[in-house]
């Protein structure tokens, strides 16, 4: 299980591959489900220039570890990885990656969806977008 809050750009595909190689579980996993959230250049009809992502250091990591452990209790998964960006982000840059490894695909999909859903609804992160009209805190998570 790995949780990482990244202050700088990360490549989600390279990160998943690198973590997979470091897991030491080759031959055991038959299914890997991955979700990558990427910054779009528009939101609710407005162009977005960049975004500032704030978090609550300590609580965020604790909460992400908690849901990762919950996923391990609920599904027969082998391992999981969550990386979330903070700080200033530009359009087309990755915001979050969630990856889950399991023997079979159903558990991998279900746990991956659980993790991103819980992360989006409760992990203490906040987005502030820079629009043409100025900067604005995002109020609704989609």
């Amino acid at each position, binding site marked *: 299980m790995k949780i990482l809050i990244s202050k700088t750009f990360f490549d989600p595909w390279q990160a998943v591959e690198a973590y997979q190689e470091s897991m030491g579980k080759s031959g055991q996993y038959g299914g890997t489900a991955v979700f990558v959230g990427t910054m779009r250049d528009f939101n609710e009809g407005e162009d977005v220039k960049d975004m500032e*992502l704030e978090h*609550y250091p300590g609580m965020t990591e604790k909460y992400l570890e908690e849901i990762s452990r919950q996923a391990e209790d609920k599904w027969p998964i082998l391992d999981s990885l969550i990386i*979330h960006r903070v700080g200033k982000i530009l359009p087309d840059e990755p915001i979050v990656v969630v990856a889950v490894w399991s023997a079979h695909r159903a558990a991998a999909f279900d746990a991956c969806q659980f993790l991103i859903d819980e992360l*989006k609804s409760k*992990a*203490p992160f*906040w987005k502030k977008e820079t629009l043409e009209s100025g900067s604005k*805190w995002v109020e609704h*998570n989609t």
Partner: protein
Amino acid sequence: MAIQVKYFASLKERLGRDADEVSAEAISNGKISTVEDIWNMVVNGESMPVNTLCAINLEYVKPDAAVKDGDEVAFFPPVTGG
């Protein structure tokens, strides 16, 4: 000791600061016993916005949760990560 109070995101901007400290005396003399009491003390009577989330020591709690000396209490708006 004391109670450390933290604010995040839009709430931090609205209050114009990211933290406050509430003295241990405020607890021992009975002025403060819950998270909501902390809010009322630090913001000078302004009511808590409807969707405000509260945490004690990095765990979500309800506004009526009890606080004790040494706790870290946090207030923040609905989260928008991912």
